[in-house]
C-alpha cells in the first residue's frame, strides 16, 4: 500500500498550500470532489478560497488543536467518477466527511453515495432542488441557495414589472428546466394574468444564439426570463443586443450578476437586467470586507461567487467540527442539522427540516461602470425568506 | 439434363453493352472454355451466373431450375463453386481454415458459438488440399501466399460443397506455364470423376485447347463461335478476333 500513500500524499501536497507540515495523525481530513478540469472558470476561485479558509482556520489553531486538511479530487464532470473518488476518499484517504460538487448530477450521485455509505456530505454548489427535496437524505446538506430560492427571489422582482407576456430561455438540462418551471409557477401564482408566449431550450454550451434570439423576438414578449450562463449567455447577449431583442424589454436573469458570468462580457454586459449575483466590490459588511481583502492578499485577485462558496463551505465545516468533539458520522450529521455559522454573506443556518442552508443571494440591476458590468440597487435576499413553508417542504421531501 | 443452361443473357453498364444475348449450356463432366479478348464480357457473364450481377435480360437455369437474379450465397447452396479472376480468400486465415470455412458453411454450422473451428471439418479440408497438392501449405496464412497457390486454394474452396458446376474465371492467371497445365489437368480429372460441369475462361490457348471439351468465343459481348476446339480454331471469325496474336494457331 506504500505506493498508494505516496500518490495520495502527492495529491495533497500538490493541491494544498506549500509548506503545510502535516501533524502526524492529528489532522482532520476533508474529502473534496469537484469538476475541476471540466469547469475551471468557476472552480479555480472556489478552490483558492477554500485553501484560504483552511489556512485561516489552521493559523488560528485549527479545530481544537487539530489542523484541517483537504484532499481534492477532480471528477472531470462525470458523476460515475465522482462516486469512485468518493469511495477512494472515504476508504483509502480516511477522510472524515465529503464535500464539493458543482454539477447537479454529480451532487446527486455523491449524495446517494453518502446515504448508502453513511457519510456526511456537504454539497457546496450544486443547485438542483432534488438534492435536498425529492432526493434529499439524512447525510446530505447543501450550502448554496437552490434553483428554487434564486427563482423565487427573481419572481419577487418580476411580479413588480408591468409585463404580462413573458418568454423564457434556459439551457436544456435539469437546472434550466426546473428554473423555468419554478419561475412560471411562482410568477403565475403572484400574478395570475401573466402569459408565457415562448420558451427556448438551447443545448448547454451549444446555443445557436442568432436563431434563438430571433425565435424569441418573433413571439414579441414584453419581458424575458433568462437562465443561460457562461458561453451561452455571452453569445445570447451579443446576438440579442445587435438584433435589438433587449430594447423596450425587461430581462430577468438568474446568476447573471455573478462575476463569473458578468465579467467575461466586459463592456458588452447588458444593462438594467434584473439579476441575482454578487457585487463583490460594493459589499462592505464586517463579514465580507475582511474576506475580500484576505482573498486579494492571498491570491492577488478579486473573489468570485465561487470563492464565497468555497470559503463558506470550509467555514461551515469548521463550525460543525467545533461543535462536535467526535468525528463520528452520526454525531456530525446530528450537529449539522440546525448548525448556525457566520458566513461571508451573513448568518446562515443549515435547516433541520430539509438540510438546506439559508445562504442568500444578491438581487439587483446590472449596470455598466468603467466599461465593466456591475450591479446597482442591490439588496441581500436572505435565503430563509425564499423557501416554501414547512408544510410544503415536508411534501417536497416525503422520505425524510 | 444439362447442368447449366443460359439463355439470352444480357447486361449493360451505362452505355457499355458488356454482354448481349448469350446462350449456351454445359453438360455434367464437361469442360467448357469461354474465351475472348480482354473486355469481351467474360467476367460479366460469370458474375451473372453466380448471382453477383442481375442480368438485364435472359435466364439462367441450374439443373433445370431457374436461378436468375438470386443472391450468390443461394446460388452457392444450389451447388455452384466459383473462383475469381482476382483471387478472393480470407487473408487472416490459414489455407486450411479457408477450406474449413467453406465446409462449415456447407454443413450450416457457422452459427455455432462454442466449439473451436480448429476441431471442425479439419479432416475433409485436409483431404481436399491433399487432392490439390496443397497439403504442405495448410498451416500458412492466405495473406502471405503466392498468387498461384491462392488460385489452388480458391479451387479447393470451390470444391468444398460438392458442386455440380464450377465457374472458374481465369483460374491459372499468374501461374507458371507448367503449373497451369497441371492445375487444369487436375481440374479436368476431378470434373470427370465427379461429373462436375466446369465453365472456365483462360487466356493461355495451350491450356484451352488441351483441356476444353468445347469452346465458346465471346467478342464485345456477343458469342461469335462455339464448338469443339478444332472447329473453333478453324473458324475465320475467331481468327479475325485474335488476328495477329497467333494465339489461336498457337503451338499445340
Amino acid at each position, binding site marked *: *500500500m506504500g505506493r498508494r500513500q505516496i500518490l495520495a500524499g502527492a*495529491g495533497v501536497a500538490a493541491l494544498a498550500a506549500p509548506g503545510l507540515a502535516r501533524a502526524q495523525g492529528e489532522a482532520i481530513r476533508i474529502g473534496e470532489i469537484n469538476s475541476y478540469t471540466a469547469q475551471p472558470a468557476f472552480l479555480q476561485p472556489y478552490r483558492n478560497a477554500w485553501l484560504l479558509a483552511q489556512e485561516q482556520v489552521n493559523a488560528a489553531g485549527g479545530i481544537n488543536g487539530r489542523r484541517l486538511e483537504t484532499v481534492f479530487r477532480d471528477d472531470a464532470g462525470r458523476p460515475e467518477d465522482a*462516486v469512485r473518488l468518493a469511495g477512494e476518499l472515504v476508504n483509502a484517504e480516511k477522510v472524515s466527511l465529503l464535500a464539493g460538487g458543482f454539477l447537479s448530477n454529480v451532487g446527486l450521485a455523491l449524495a446517494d453515495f453518502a446515504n448508502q455509505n453513511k457519510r456526511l456530505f456537504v454539497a457546496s454548489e450544486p443547485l438542483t432542488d432534488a438534492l435536498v427535496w425529492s432526493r434529499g437524505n439524512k447525510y446530505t446538506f447543501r450550502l448554496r441557495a437552490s434553483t428554487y430560492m434564486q427563482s423565487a427571489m427573481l419572481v419577487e422582482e418580476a411580479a413588480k414589472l408591468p409585463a404580462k407576456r413573458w418568454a423564457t430561455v434556459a439551457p436544456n438540462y435539469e437546472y434550466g428546466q426546473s428554473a423555468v418551471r419554478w419561475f412560471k409557477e411562482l410568477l403565475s401564482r403572484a400574478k395570475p394574468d401573466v402569459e408565457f408566449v415562448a420558451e427556448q431550450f438551447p443545448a448547454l454550451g451549444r446555443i445557436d444564439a442568432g436563431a434563438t434570439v430571433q425565435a424569441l423576438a418573433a413571439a414579441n414578449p414584453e419581458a424575458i426570463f433568462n437562465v443561460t450562463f457562461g458561453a451561452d449567455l455571452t453569445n445570447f447577449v451579443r446576438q440579442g443586443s445587435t438584433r435589438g431583442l433587449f430594447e423596450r424589454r425587461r430581462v430577468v436573469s438568474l446568476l447573471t450578476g455573478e462575476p463569473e458570468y458578468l465579467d467575461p462580457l466586459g463592456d458588452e454586459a447588458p444593462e438594467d437586467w434584473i439579476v441575482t449575483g454578487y457585487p463583490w466590490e460594493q459589499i462592505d459588511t464586517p463579514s465580507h470586507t475582511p474576506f475580500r481583502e484576505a482573498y486579494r492578499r492571498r491570491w492577488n485577485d478579486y473573489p468570485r461567487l465561487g470563492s464565497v462558496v468555497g470559503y463558506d463551505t470550509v467555514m461551515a465545516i469548521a463550525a460543525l467540527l467545533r461543535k462536535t468533539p467526535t468525528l463520528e458520522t452520526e454525531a456530525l450529521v446530528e450537529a449539522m442539522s440546525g448548525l448556525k455559522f457566520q458566513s461571508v454573506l451573513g448568518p446562515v443556518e443549515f435547516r433541520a427540516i430539509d438540510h438546506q442552508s439559508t445562504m442568500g443571494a444578491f438581487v439587483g440591476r446590472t449596470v455598466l461602470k468603467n466599461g465593466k458590468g456591475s450591479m446597482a440597487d442591490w439588496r441581500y435576499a436572505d435565503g430563509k425568506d425564499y423557501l416554501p413553508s414547512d408544510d410544503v417542504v415536508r411534501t417536497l421531501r416525503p422520505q425524510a | 439434363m444439362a447442368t447449366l443452361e443460359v439463355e439470352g443473357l444480357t447486361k449493360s453498364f451505362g452505355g457499355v453493352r458488356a454482354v448481349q444475348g448469350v446462350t449456351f449450356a454445359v453438360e455434367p463432366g464437361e469442360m467448357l472454355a469461354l474465351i475472348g479478348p480482354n473486355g469481351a464480357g467474360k467476367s460479366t457473364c460469370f458474375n451473372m451466373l453466380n448471382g453477383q450481377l442481375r442480368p438485364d435480360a435472359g435466364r439462367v437455369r441450374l439443373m433445370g431450375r431457374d436461378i436468375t437474379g438470386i443472391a450468390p450465397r443461394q446460388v452457392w447452396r444450389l451447388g455452384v463453386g466459383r473462383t475469381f479472376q482476382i483471387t478472393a480468400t480470407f487473408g487472416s486465415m490459414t489455407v486450411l481454415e479457408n477450406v474449413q470455412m467453406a465446409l462449415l458453411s456447407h454443413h450450416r454450422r457457422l452459427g455455432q458459438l462454442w466449439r473451436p473451428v480448429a476441431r471442425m471439418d479439419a479432416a475433409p479440408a485436409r483431404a481436399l488440399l491433399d487432392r490439390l497438392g496443397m497439403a504442405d501449405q495448410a498451416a500458412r496464412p492466405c495473406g502471405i501466399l503466392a498468387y498461384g497457390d491462392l488460385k489452388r486454394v480458391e479451387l479447393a474452396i470451390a470444391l468444398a460443397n460438392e458442386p455440380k458446376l464450377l465457374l472458374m474465371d481465369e483460374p491459372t492467371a499468374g501461374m507458371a506455364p507448367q503449373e497451369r497445365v497441371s492445375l487444369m489437368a487436375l481440374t479436368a480429372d476431378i470434373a470427370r470423376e465427379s461429373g462436375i460441369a466446369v465453365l472456365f475462361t483462360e487466356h493461355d490457348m495451350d491450356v484451352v485447347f488441351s483441356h476444353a471439351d468445347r469452346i465458346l468465343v465471346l467478342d464485345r459481348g456477343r458469342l461469335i463461335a462455339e464448338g469443339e476446339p478444332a472447329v473453333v480454331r478453324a473458324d475465320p471469325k475467331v481468327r479475325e478476333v485474335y488476328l495477329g496474336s497467333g494465339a489461336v494457331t498457337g503451338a499445340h
Partner: protein
Amino acid sequence: MENLVLQALSGLASASSLFLVASGLTVIFGVSRVVNFAHGSLYMLGAYLAWTLVTTLPRGHLGFWGGVIGAALLVGLIGLLVEVLLLRRIYRAPELFQLLATFGVVLIVQDLALMTWGAQDLLGPRAPGLRGSVEIVGLRFPLYELFLIGVGPVVLALLWLLFHRTRWGTLVRAATQDREMVGALGVNQRMLFTSVFFLGSLLAGLGGALQLPRESVNLHMDLSIITEAFVVVVVGGLGSLSGAALAALLIGELHAFGILIVPKITLVLVFLVMALVLVVRPHGLLGKPEAAARGGQGSAEPVIGPAPPALRWLALAALAVAVVLPPFLGDYAVSVLTELAIFVLFAASLHLIMGPGGMASFGHAAYFGLGAYGAALAAQWLGAPMLAGLALAPLMAGIFGLVFGYFCVRLSGVYAAMLTLAFAQIAWSVAFQWVEVTGGDNGILGVWPDAWAAPKLVYYYLALALCLGATLFLRRVVHAPFGYALRAQRDSTLRAEAIGIDAFRIRWLGFALAAAAAGIAGGLFAYGKGSVFPTYMGIPRSVDALLMVLLGGVQTLSGPIIGALAFTGLQEQLVRLTDLWRLILGCIIVLLVLFFPQGLAGAARARWEARHGDA
C-alpha cells in the same frame, strides 16, 4: 413571415460557420483517411490565437483582420506540425489508429489552452465596420452575420478553384478518389498529405477565428464543434466539399426552424438528421461508395491462433492475482478492480465488432448505457432484485443492438461508425429528456446491490466472474465458426457471399452480441455505482471504449483487455496525482502511438514473434 426570413438568414450564418470547419475536416479525411478528432482543438486554437492577436495588434481593420488571418495561418502551421511529427509516422497503422493519436492531441491542447489563456471565457472585440445591424424586411439583422453568410460561399468557391484549376488540387482530388493511384503516379505523397493538413487546419483555424465577434472564446469550443463538424462531413459525404456545404446548409436551417416548433430539439436534431440521411443514403448526400480499400486479396490482418503458452501462463497468473489478492486490499482498491473488470468486458465487446467484425463503432456506449438503464429502470419501477436487473441489462442492450445494428451494419467504414454514434446520441437524448421515466440528467439513484452482494469484495467477485466469463465467452466465439464467419466477411465479402455466408446477417448478429455483452458491463456498472446517468451513454464513454481497443491493439484478442487495463488504470492514477492529468495522459497516448503503432498487445505480439521466428 418577416420573422421566418430572418430565421432563415440566421440559419445561413450558422451554416456558413459550420461549413468552414467541416470543409477542413472533409479535405483532410478525403486525402489521408484520418479521422481527425483534433480538428475541434484546432478550431478552438484559432479562436484563442485570434483573440490574442486582435487584442494585442493595434485596433482597426488591420489589427482585426490581420489577427484573424494570422491566427488561421498559425493554426495551419500547428496542423502541419502535428502531421509531420505525429501522424506521418503512423499512416500504416491499422484503420482508425490515427484517431487515437489525434485524441491525445485533444487532451494536450485542452490543458495547454487552459494554462495559456486561463479558465475564464474571453470575449473578443467585434469586427470593425461590422458592429451594427441592417434592416431586412423591417427587422434588424447583424451585419457580421451577413458577412458570415457571404464567407461560406466565397471559401467554397476558392476551394473549388484550388481543387479544379491547380495541379495540386487535381492531385488532391485524385487522392481523395483513389489513394493507391497517387502512390502509383509516383507523386510525392508526403508533401501532398502535409499540405492538405496545412490547408485543413487553416480552415479550422479560420472558422474559429471568425467566431471571435460572435461568441466568447472558451475551453469547451473544441468538443462542442467536433461532433457537429463530423456530422456535416458524413451527411455531406466523406471527402465531398459540395456535400459538406449542402449538409451545413441543411443542418443550419433545420436548427433555425426546428427550434420554432420543438424548442428542445437542439440536443438531438443533428443526429436525427444524420441517422435519416445515412439510412436512406449510405454514403451521405453527395458521397461516392468508397473503392474497396481491401482488395479481394484479403487484408494484412494477422491469423489468430490459440494463445502461446507464455501468454496463457501470464493470463493465469493475472487471474490468480485478481482472485487471491483483493481480500487483502482496501475497499477502494477493490472498487477500482471492479471497474477494471467491467471495462475489460466493455472493451472486449467493442473489439468483437471492430476487430473480427471489421466495423468501427463510435457509439458503443449506447449499449453500455442501455444495459445500465435496463437494470436501473427495473430496480426503480419494478423493484426488481439485483440478479433480475443484471439479467435484464444484456437483454435490453441486445434488443437495441438488434434494432440499431440492423441499420448500422449495412453501412461501411466511417459511415457505419457515425450511424452508431447517431443512434447512441438518440438513446442518450431520450435518457436525458424523458425526465419522468429516466430522471433526466439527474439520473436514477439508489441502484444498489442486494444485501448479499453489498460488500465491495463480494460485488467484485460477482463482477469479475461475470465480466471474465463474458470476455472469455467472446474470445471463445472468435475461435468458433461464428467468429470465423465474422472475420470471413471482413476479409472478403465477395468470397464470403460466394461460399454461402450471409455477410449482413453475420455482422448484424455480431453487433447484437457485442451490444448484449456491453449491456452486461453496463448493468454491473450501474449496481457498482449505485446510480445511472445519461453520461453512461455519452460520447466520451464511447470514445473511451474506442481508445481502449485501439491502445491495446485491434488485431490481437488480448488487445482490448490490455488496452482497458492500461487506459483505465492510467487515468485513475493520473487524475488523483495531478490537475494536469489531461496533458500527461495526452502525452503518454501520443508516445504510445508513436512507439507501438499496433497497440500494446500488438507490439508485444510482434516482439514475441520476432523472438520465436513465428510466421
